[in-house]
């Protein structure tokens, strides 16, 4: 099984190739450059570096959301285009699951936090002993809600490991919310990684076979949130989100 993984759901742009448990290549950046400018050039560079013939891959893994709406779509449109051109299926992986799958061999409860703005986080709760177990599936909630759930699950017995780009904005609040001991992941574990995504995709393939495959045509990201305009549709006179095409004022 040869998996090409593409990561663009958050601050990291990345790609990786995993072949039968061997991480052949990984490329990862967290830089001011836009994903739309960096993703294909890094794929190109990686493929040339390891002489990868794209026709030989079996599936394309992608973080399916949640995440930055724009980032998710750059990733989605990219893998959909690759899937169409190469006639390969996709393996969509929930973003928060992919984040947690970077952690292994710990007794701590693993809680990825992604900044969802509007005083909320994209998060979930996982066990990462010898395999990833989902205790609380990914969701978008206020930080206090996931903290309460962690306090309940960990009470007296477990510690908690936080990771993700939501950590810096949540650190201070966690101090007041957490009643159990907690830690923050080091830099190589605390962001989306295409390698972790690829490993998770390979596990899904092992566990579920073809059930984890989605056609490139059918794939759509899971945003976990409706567009603001759709939420506000009740108040019909609110046109704040409406743009009569004229934004490209040149």
């Amino acid at each position, binding site marked *: 099984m040869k998996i090409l993984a593409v990561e663009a759901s958050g601050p990291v742009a990345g790609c990786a190739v995993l072949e039968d448990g061997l991480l052949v290549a990984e490329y990862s950046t967290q830089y001011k450059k*836009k994903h*739309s*400018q*960096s*993703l*294909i*050039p890094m*794929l*190109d560079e990686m493929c040339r570096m390891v002489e990868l013939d*794209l026709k030989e891959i079996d599936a394309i893994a992608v973080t399916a959301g949640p995440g930055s*709406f*724009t980032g998710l*779509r*750059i990733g*989605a*449109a*990219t*893998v*959909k*285009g*690759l*899937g*169409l*051109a*190469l006639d390969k299926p996709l393996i969509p992986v929930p973003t928060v699951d992919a984040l947690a799958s970077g952690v292994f061999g710990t007794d701590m409860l693993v809680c990825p936090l992604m900044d969802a703005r509007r005083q909320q986080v994209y998060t979930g709760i996982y066990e990462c002993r010898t395999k990833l177990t989902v205790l609380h599936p990914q969701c978008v909630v206020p930080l206090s809600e996931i903290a309460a759930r962690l306090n309940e699950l960990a009470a007296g017995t477990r510690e908690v490991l936080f990771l993700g780009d939501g950590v810096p904005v949540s650190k201070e609040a966690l101090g007041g919310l957490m009643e159990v001991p907690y830690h923050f992941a080091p830099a190589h574990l605390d962001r989306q990684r295409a390698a972790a995504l690829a490993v998770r995709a390979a596990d899904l393939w092992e566990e579920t076979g073809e059930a984890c495959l989605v056609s*490139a*045509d059918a794939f*759509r*990201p899971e*945003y976990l949130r409706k*567009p*603001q*305009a*759709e939420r506000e*549709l009740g108040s019909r006179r609110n*046109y704040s*989100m*409406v*743009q*009569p*095409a*004229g*934004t*490209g*004022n*040149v």
Partner: protein
Amino acid sequence: MSITEKKSGEEITILAIESSCDETAASVVRGGRTVLSNVISSQIDIHTLYGGVVPEIASRKHTERINQVIRQGLSEAGMELEDMDAIAVTYGPGLVGPLLIGVSAAKAISFATGIPLVGVHHIEGHSCANYIAAPELEPPFVCLVVSGGHTHLVLVKDYGKYEILGRTQDDAAGEAFDKVAREIGLGYPGGPKIDRVSREGDPRAIDFPRGKVSGSAYDFSFSGMKSSVLNYLNTCRMKNIEVNVPDVAASFQQAVVDVLVTHAMRAVDEYGLTRLALAGGVASNTALRAAMRSACEERGVEFFCPPPILCTDNAAMIGCAAYYEFMQGVRSGYDLNAKPGLRLGDR
């Protein structure tokens, strides 16, 4: 075809993708002007609920439909990706979220197949719709591009060579149509609705000011015109005078048409050109077409206007524009980005 065999221009086949606003479109164009397929998946029904295009919703819909639209574009042309000589895509101007979908998909397809990529300017595409509609048309000519997002008076000097003579300093013409239509209760999209209702109204009933712009003879301003319609409606409301919607629509439309025709004719006269072309969604407006045609006839200027299917956002026009860029050696890199404010002539 073997690698050593060089294709002639007429055989060059391009897959074009367009997603700059609320239409997901794909087309296969051969030799620049022969359209083998022209698939347009419009989202208008969804955006009508909101009275205008919602960028986030448009971006989501593009993502959902992009592959199917591309596949349909290829299959209606009876072709496979491997038959393509280039992948063309609109990379600006437009809404950044929607633009990114087409750009990302096009780059991925180009990367996966090795087929060269050509980024295309949306306004250049609109202007090129005239090449498809009129095989005999050659530059130079003056092109007026009017749509919901753009109002540009362009001097087409040669293939791929443009000079912008004037542009709107505020609202695009189509945007003004949408806003006025909303205020007089016609709803979205305003252009076609005002066009229809105006046929029952008197275009001379109300004398709305023709917006003038100081400094440039060719620039446009439509927000003043729109405001004077709103003022007129408010005054009627306060005085309890019943508003004659067809008259307001027809008079507003006449004001817009007058300005567009005057500017276009000024350019034709000034540059001594014998051809004028319309383009963009508002080019479907029947009053604009009729007025421009008769102004051109008066001067002995040849008038061009694509059919509505090539006026609305479509990918065939992008394929046509890409052809002339491609033949001149233009290729885009994998770092091609969506540029919402891309200027004509910039790369």
